[in-house]
């Protein structure tokens, strides 16, 4: 086999990484290079440095250390039975690429994942070495996200947390049965235990030590995970149930949903079709309802017939239409929790309403001025001089809203 150039390896190993949805570079501890005189900063909010035509943000150099892999997960292009071209970066090459890209302001940092070669510890060890070199030798203060290999040793994971901003472990699929079927060598039990151990270590290190009263730095950006949607038959309700369990059990910062994408040379056990992107989008919206809008997981789809999110309208509007008894909500009197349940009102707008109404009573036009569109809102609120009357309970309300919102939709 001829020796590949760095550029050829980059082509293979970024192509191999493109099916992973995790991308965020936000939520870590603030740091910069003023003291060290090195390169890099993270300031809480991540920055997307470019966008690919698939609409996804490019914030990190997202690559695999190698796409050789001993596992044979049927949804993965890098599975051992795949005929994809293989390559392997050296630690040096990844460090240099990261620094070269960062200095030109192409990226916020590195997201390093890897196929597993020989043993989990050996692979994980090399990933940790990349992070160590970046931090200690290059004085790099940018973002580092390492994809932890569940079977690797506790010591290595601890070291990884020392250098990385965020660690993640993929749950792969929403159910244990799904993992057993599509990733026969992966063990859901081990994945859970690894996440549990990560949460424990994060909590341990967050306690100030008795002697120094200082907190040890350990993955300040927390842990995240990804699951593939649409490769097995799990319903949206089932997927959200798994997410709620993961957020609650392991205190994840994010659960990423990745619509199963057809992959070249794909395994025959999988659907051969375009990924259900709208479904992925609706799942993210439902996820937000759980994390920022006070919805519990079971109520998001309660009363739906098939446990699937409505593809035509957002999950909050769908919920409101199924629970019309809770509306209309009085803009001038309702508490924050009730306002957050009104379709079309986001957290920022609700904060503005609460502030504004301390000084004056709000009319429908006032609300209209601070939110994007009034079409979705009107049937669900009471404002000064406005009452929806029978509109809230009207048959065909859903279609009417869908029509007036269609122009606003991004898709």
């Amino acid at each position: 086999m001829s020796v590949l150039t760095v550029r050829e390896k980059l082509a293979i190993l970024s192509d191999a990484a493109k099916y992973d949805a995790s991308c965020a570079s936000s939520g870590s501890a603030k740091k910069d290079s003023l003291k060290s005189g090195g390169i890099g900063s993270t300031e809480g909010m991540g920055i997307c440095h470019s966008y690919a035509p698939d609409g996804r943000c490019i914030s990190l150099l997202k690559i695999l250390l190698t796409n050789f892999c001993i596992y044979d997960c049927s949804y993965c292009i890098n599975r051992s039975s795949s005929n994809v071209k293989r390559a392997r970066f050296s630690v040096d090459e990844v460090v240099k690429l990261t620094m070269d890209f960062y200095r030109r302001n192409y990226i916020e940092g590195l997201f390093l994942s890897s196929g597993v070669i020989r043993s989990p510890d050996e692979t994980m060890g090399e990933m940790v070495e990349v992070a160590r070199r970046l931090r200690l030798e290059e004085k790099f203060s940018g973002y580092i996200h390492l994809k932890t290999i569940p079977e690797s040793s506790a010591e290595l994971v601890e070291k990884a947390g020392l250098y990385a901003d965020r660690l993640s472990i993929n749950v792969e699929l929403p159910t244990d049965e799904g993992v057993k079927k599509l990733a026969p060598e992966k063990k859901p039990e081990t994945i859970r235990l690894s996440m549990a151990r990560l949460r424990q270590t994060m909590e341990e290190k967050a306690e100030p030590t008795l002697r120094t009263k200082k907190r040890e730095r350990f993955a300040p950006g927390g842990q995240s995970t990804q699951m593939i949607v649409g490769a097995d038959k799990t319903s949206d309700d089932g997927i959200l149930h798994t997410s709620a369990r993961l957020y609650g059990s392991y205190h994840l910062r994010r659960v990423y949903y990745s619509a199963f994408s057809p992959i070249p040379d794909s395994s025959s056990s999988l659907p051969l079709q375009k990924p259900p992107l709208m479904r992925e989008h609706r799942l993210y919206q439902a996820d937000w309802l759980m994390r920022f809008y006070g919805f519990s997981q079971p109520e998001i789809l309660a009363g739906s017939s098939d446990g699937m999110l409505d593809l035509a309208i957002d999950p909050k509007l769908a919920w409101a239409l199924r629970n019309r008894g809770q509306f209309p909500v009085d803009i001038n009197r309702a508490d924050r929790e009730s306002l957050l349940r009104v379709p079309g009102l986001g957290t920022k707008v609700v904060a503005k309403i609460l502030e504004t109404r301390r000084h004056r009573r709000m009319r429908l036009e006032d609300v209209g001025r601070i939110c994007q569109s009034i079409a979705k809102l009107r049937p669900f609120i009471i404002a000064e001089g406005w009452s929806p009357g029978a509109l809230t309970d009207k048959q065909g309300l859903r279609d009417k809203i869908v029509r007036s919102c269609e122009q606003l939709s991004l898709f």
Partner: protein
Amino acid sequence: MQPAELDLARYSVRLESETDFSGWRDAARRLALNEIKPGDVSWHVAAGSDQPPGDLPAVPVGAQLVVPRDFIEHAETAFCHSDPSRFAFLYRLLWRLRTEPKLLAIASDPDTRRLEAMEKAVRRDSHKMHAFVRFRKIGDGDEERYVAWFEPDHFIVERNADFFVRRFTGMRWTILTPYASADWDGERLAIGPGSAKGDAPDQDDTEALWRTYFENIFNPARLKVKVMQKEMPKKYWRNLPEASLIPGLIAGADKAAVAMIAKMPTTPAPHHAKVQARHWPKQPVETPQDGDASTISELREAAKGCRRCPLWRDATQTVFGEGPDNAKVIFVGEQPGDQEDLAGKPFVGPAGKVFDAILDDAGVDRQKVYVTNAVKHFKFEPRGKRRIHSKPNAGEIQACRWWIDREFELIKPDLAVALGATAALSLLGKAIAVTKMRGQVIERKDGLRVFITIHPSFILRIHEPADKEAERERFLQDMNQVKRLMVA
């Protein structure tokens, strides 16, 4: 500049530059304190002009201008906006704030809306500058420098320079824009005049790699052009080295996606069989052999894969009993909690700590007792980022008795301690009133003595310190009694 306006206005204010906020602030203060209405002022920028600054009245002795503290911050941001009417607009806001101090809290007011929109535009432009500045390297070794050309919509170079200093401290860099430049030599930041695109280098060797990355990280099966353009509007494209690839990628996407789908599964790669044989040797299919366990550790192993009720689905792991396999007493709790579920050990969470401390006070050596739970998987409701404990039901308790019974068979203790109602139900097979039966010993048909008491988590839930202490004391007495029963 509109001369007609100048003629009509009684006061004309000349600012040093588009970003001369302190000049504006000083003038606005003087004007407002002299009761000069917004309509009587015209504002203009005349950098380096010889004209004397407009004659503005002095601040009356002892006069003070009171504005909400956050106004200055908002105004400073909006001041960077490219709208030439911003100076007059901000003065009008200041004028209104004198009599309407809550104005900025009224989100529906048109002036407040406009201020917000201006700030948002400036912040967005700043954010895009953080994102889309592309440095190009010139020189090597001691001569190494990084130079970028960027075209902001607003006057944001001064505002953003510190960000680049914090981020690229160890680099020498210059950002050139049409109206100003920022230069960092490794020690000092200098803001200079604007320049032309031609002053910046037009290429960099690393761009070929960056373009390779951009091309390959794109998934043609997920084309979403509108979303991309919303976040990366075309006006930025001309200065982004990767953007010239976009039209080609979009045009080829459908074909590429169809090709991906059409490419039928092929035969496994040649090395696959070898990899499988080396790493995943076929193991004989294991059938669950729960019944065969002849020691506690075998039983613990068997319980790991327990599927006797659906609770395993949401829990992390089976939390089995712990302690010597010849213990004289077995303590039975309800079910593992959040901490136990993570650690895989019983009684390690807050209730476990209370339990340990009281056992210690009673002089019972925890090392010599066996501690387990009636139900071996954590049952909970996820609520945000917490797990709220929920009580196991009779069916779950019944399913788990299979394990409890075997633990008792193998350990053969003299005494069981039921901590709480769930444990009592599991051990006695019927519901009893724990508070009424507390401190009593019930003998089962098989001769096992069961001591009834509360679950230590009950103590944790009491808020009143005196009551809490009293309850702790009662539990200590219970444990003293357990100790006596162990000896007997």
